[in-house]
Each structure stands twice: as structure tokens, then as C-alpha cells.
């Protein structure tokens, strides 16, 4: 029993990593631009299809799919930002509706091009198989390990960009106080464009990495969108540590509770937990102090 619980705890890390990857893009976008992107789940879905296309038509494996998805989605994100978001700046309800429209267009577009059936994306040969973990009931798949490594990598990359580059400093300035940043001469429109493109690119990578272990279909995006919003709501907006905290709490809680009880009860308890936490910390666990 203890072995199974430990195995569960380890698996929880991979769930946390998955949650982190899917939420990171949204956290960055929502944190800086306060834009609710209803198409976030569908960006993830397009990322999965990019992986599928790379595999089927270019015969290139997932390692190529990841940067491909990043750039494809960054391009789509930039287009959406330039065409829609920027026109509707300051009007949250219209932005919501417009991004929901993007979601519908993406879903139906993919359905028209590829058909509604499930698609098969393979994990790279290199990552096939698993290794035994001492003290654990289950062997740990290499691919899930790769997901954890990738999540940490993306997190570090985001941190490095935000805290170690000029661009990142400008992003953080806009995040903390947009009008003041504008007054100080920062081109907020350019920052917005970059942020949206980067967040969308991250969503694309999430889709690619999830395709081999989940299912790839035009409607796959919605549950991921729900999960990422939960992570951000719980963890708080504006700080990376919030997203990590949100993903960790939700990921581990769901996994361990699912083992002790079952999937349905676990989801219910996690939802209840989130509601309670929000009641106590309305801004989420970690939030930015604003003046």
C-alpha cells in the first residue's frame, strides 16, 4: 500500500508538470494583459495537430514537433492579437466573445481539414519504456519523465526571459502598472503582442507533448482550458510562483485523492478545496502587490 501511495505521489509530479505546461501560457497572457482567452484550449489542440502533421506528412518525430508547434502557435497568437485582441483592448466582454469565436473557428477548421476522428501521435522511440523506481509500485515511464523535464525547462525559460532580459523587465513593468509603464515610454502594444505570441506558443507545446498520452481530436481542448483556469485562479495571477503553486496543489491533490477514493470524488474534493481557498485568499495563493 505504501509502495502504491509512493508511486501515486510520483505520478502526481507528472500530472503537476502537465498542468504547469498547459497553464503557463495562459498565466503569462492573463497576468499581463488581463485577457481571458477562450481559445486557449484550442491552441493546445492545434499544437497536438501540428505534432500529428509533423509525424504523418514530414515523418519527423515529436522532438521536431515541439519547436514547430511553438512557432506555429506563436504565429497564430500574433495574428489573433493583432486582428482581434488589440482592437478590443479594454473591453473584456467583447474580448471574451471574440476569443470564443476564434475557438469555434479553430475547432471547425481542424475538423474540416482533418475530420472528426481521433488521431494517433506516437512518442519518440527514444522515450519508450519505463524504469523501475525503488520503493514504488509502478515503473515510471520515460515519457512522463520527459514531460517533467520539459515543464521545468519551460518554467526556467519563462523565468529567464521575464527576470533576466530587458524585454522581460518591460513585460513585468506593464504587468505591475500599465499606465505608468506607458508614461515611462514602454511600447505596451509591442509587449502585448510578444506576450500573447509567447503564451500561445507555450500552449502549442503543451498540445504536442500531451498528444502521445492522451487523445487527439478537434474537441480535445476544452478540459485543458478548464484545468488551466483552475490553476490560475488558485495560484494567483502575476507571479510565476503562483502558477507553480496552483499546479502543484491541484495536481498532487487530485492524484492522491483519486488513489485513496476514486476519480470522481477526487475532482469534487479538489473543486471544493479551490472554492475554500478562494474564499480565504480571493486573489489566489500568490499575488502581486499593486499600488
Amino acid at each position, binding site marked *: 500500500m505504501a509502495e502504491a501511495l509512493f508511486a501515486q505521489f510520483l505520478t502526481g509530479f507528472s*500530472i503537476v508538470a502537465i498542468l504547469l505546461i498547459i497553464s503557463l501560457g495562459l498565466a503569462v497572457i492573463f497576468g499581463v494583459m488581463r485577457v481571458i482567452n477562450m481559445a486557449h484550449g484550442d491552441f493546445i489542440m492545434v499544437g497536438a495537430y501540428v505534432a500529428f502533421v509533423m509525424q504523418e506528412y514530414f515523418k519527423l518525430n515529436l522532438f521536431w514537433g515541439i519547436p514547430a508547434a511553438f512557432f506555429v502557435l506563436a504565429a497564430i497568437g500574433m495574428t489573433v492579437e493583432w486582428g482581434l485582441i488589440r482592437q478590443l483592448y479594454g473591453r473584456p466582454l467583447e474580448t471574451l466573445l471574440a476569443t470564443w469565436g476564434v475557438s469555434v473557428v479553430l475547432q471547425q477548421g481542424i475538423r474540416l481539414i482533418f475530420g*472528426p476522428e481521433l488521431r*494517433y501521435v506516437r512518442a519518440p522511440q527514444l522515450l519508450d519504456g519505463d524504469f523501475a523506481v525503488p520503493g514504488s*509500485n*509502478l515503473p515510471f515511464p520515460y515519457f512522463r519523465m520527459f514531460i517533467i523535464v520539459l515543464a521545468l525547462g519551460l518554467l526556467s525559460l519563462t523565468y529567464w526571459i521575464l527576470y533576466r532580459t530587458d524585454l522581460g523587465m518591460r513585460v513585468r513593468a506593464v504587468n505591475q502598472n500599465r499606465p505608468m509603464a506607458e508614461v515611462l515610454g514602454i511600447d505596451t502594444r509591442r509587449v502585448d503582442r510578444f506576450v500573447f505570441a509567447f503564451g500561445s506558443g507555450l500552449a502549442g507545446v503543451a498540445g504536442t507533448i500531451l498528444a502521445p498520452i*492522451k487523445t487527439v*481530436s478537434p474537441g480535445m481542448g476544452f478540459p485543458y482550458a478548464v484545468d488551466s483556469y483552475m490553476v490560475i485562479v488558485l495560484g494567483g495571477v502575476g507571479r510565476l510562483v503562483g502558477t507553480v503553486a496552483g499546479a502543484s496543489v491541484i495536481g498532487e491533490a487530485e492524484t492522491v485523492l483519486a*488513489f485513496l477514493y476514486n476519480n*470522481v470524488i477526487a475532482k469534487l474534493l479538489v473543486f471544493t478545496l479551490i472554492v475554500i481557498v478562494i474564499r480565504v485568499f480571493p486573489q489566489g495563493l500568490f499575488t502581486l502587490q499593486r499600488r
Partner: protein
Amino acid sequence: MELTRRDVVKGALAASAGAAAFGVPHIFVRRLTQANAQDKTIKVGILHSLSGTIAIIERSLHNAELLAIDEINAKGGVLGKKIEAIIEDPKSEVRFFKEKAEKLILKDKVAAVLGCYTSASRQSVLPVFEKYNSVLLYPTLYEAQECSYNCFYTGAVPNQQLSDFVPWLIKNVGPKFYLIGSNYIYPKETNREVKAYLAKYGGQTVAEEYAPLGSTEFSTTINKIKSAKPNVVFSDLVGDSIVAFYKQYRQFGITAKDIPIGTPITTEEEIKAMGPENAIGHYTSFNYFQSLKNPVNERFVKAFKGKYGQDKVTNAVMEAAYFQTYFLAQAIEKLKGNTDPDGLIQEGLPGQQFQAPQGKVKIDPVNHHTWLWARIGRANTDGQFDVVDESKDWIRPDPWTRVLYPDKDCDFSKVPKGSKSGTITVKRS
């Protein structure tokens, strides 16, 4: 802000438009009249999900029915009239099934509907068919314990599937079963039946759990399976969940040699979506497999691939969808082109026979279910099934599973005329 006259007029128009939109369908509620004899075509409704979580399998039912209609029309149709398919996509959502069924019956005035996959969808549309007295032909294996006047069931019931499968698994793999399923009526009823068969044949239930329909994260379940050490995992997962589960099962290092998965649901279609390497060695029980070697099946597979693509596969549920279309055409022909629902239900459909790709099949004369063949297949490296067991003859369907309800049966010849259910009580010695 004051209310101007313009606002009042706009509001009134909007309100009345809304009320009219709600009211319009109800204006057309009336007893279904038979299709006009002057109609140039025979309209048949096709009600299968082409999108959503069940589309992976339900799409193939739609395709098979259209193939059958094409073949019938190519031979001149039914008594010279072509069959016209009216297609609706309920998107795997139960509420849309009900809406679309009403539309097909009331607006399109179809002769019958070929439709549904999940039991949830069937149970939501049956009241519609019973209310407006139309005909549903349902091709999917299901949990039985049902017997509606307005439905003809051409898929397997447990005594044509589980009653061989469970004892075979106990004998050839082992007695300890871990039951998993999607969270709705079919898996729950089926697991109830499995447990009854286990009790009868000396098997044992190690654990039982359910995942939300459409869920794709199974690491916890797999961990529990590993801890519980069963001989067989009996899975009633449906749709997308099947693909995710088999993939993650193998990723976590469990092979069919250790703990095989036995299921009455996973078809060649889901195996194509998950990749054959994830399905090797696992067992499925069905009436039909694409790999069956007989001339009718070879012709059928060739025709299907010819119409839809060489990479497509056939499966048991769409094979039933295919032959039930022929049943319908034959029934209308027997009634000399009359598509009156009571005629189809009482005279046209019962007793119909057809040489299907699985073998000869027939609709039972009194219980609205179909005589079928039972087989057990093991998935191989090509994503097809090697048949490891086969029934010697076709099997009479028991709409009430005897191991659970020994004193119930379905017999429309023994219930009062106009009764919507054929369930009767019998004394068995």
C-alpha cells in the same frame, strides 16, 4: 435611463420572436402520419454522432448505413423507390439526440431511424419514438433489460456476448477480475451482469471503479490495478477513454501477458486510433471481426474500404448498422412499399433474415432482438483480431438476462395490443 417607445417596441418584437420560436415546434405536435405514397423516395433518418467523444466509433455506424443505402439504391431501391438518407449529428450529447429524433420524426417524416450508440442516447430518444409511434433500429451491443415496442435491437445482448466471454476468460486467463467502466448506465449494468456470471462460474471481483465519460487520465487507476493484482481487467470504457487507457496501460509497463484487458467494446476503430502496439494481446468479444474469413465479409470489407478509404477498418457495431439497413429495406418491401410504423413493427421487421458478414442473422419473431453469432478475438500486431473462440450456431437473444432476471422475458405476441413494452413474467423450472 428612461424607457423610450423605441425600446418598448424592440423589446416586444424580441419577446414575441422568442415566444414564437419556442411555440412553433409545439404547433406541429400531432400523430405521425405515414409518408405520402406519392413520395418519390423513402426517407430514412440517420442519427449518429459525427463529432464529440463518441464520434470515434459512431461515425463508422453512419458510414456503414450509408454504404448499405448506396448498395440498395444501386440495385434499384425498394420496389423502384430510392432510399433517401436524412442525416443528423447529435455531437455525442444526449440532449441533442432527443431534439434531432423529434426533428426527423415530425419534420422529415422519416419511415424509420437508424441510430444511437450509447445506452444513454437510446434511453433518451425512446420516449420520443414511443410518443410519436415511429421506429428506431439500434445497432449497438447493450446491457439488455429492455424491450420497447418502437425499437428493434440489432446489437448483442449479454447472453450473446458475456455469457461465453466471462467463463472463457476465467478458464483461459484467471478468476480475479478488476472491473472498470465509464460512468453511465451501460458499463454499470454490464458490470452487474459480469459479476453475476463471475459468481456463477467461480470468478471473483477484485475491485470496481468508474471514470467520467471522456476522461483521459488513468495513471491512478493503473496504479490501483497493479496493487490489486487481478488476472483480468474487464473494461467497459467507451469512446476516447479507451484510447487513453490502453496507451497509458502499456506506458506504465503492464502487458497483455501480465494482465490482459477483456472488453465487450473495444473495436478495430479504437485500436487504429491508439496504435496496434498498445492493443496487442488484449481480448474483445464481439459477434463480428473484420478478420472473419467468408465471402460475404470479404465483399463487405472491400466495399467499405472502396467507398471510404483503404485505411478504414470495419467493426462489429457498424456491421450491425449495415445489416439493419437491409432489414429495414426488406421490411418495407415485404409491406409492398407501405411504411406505416405499426405495419413495420408488427409485420415487416419481425422474422427478417439476412446473410450478414458475421453469418446468417435474423430478427426474432416476437422479442424485437436479433439472433447473432458470438466470438472472442485477441488483438494482433496488425490491429486486427485473431478469433480464438466462436459459437457453434447463432444464439437466441434474451432481452432479459437470465442470470439476473430469471423470471422475465420479452414477447410481443403475449402482451395486449398497443402496449409499449413487451416485458412479461415467465415461470421457469
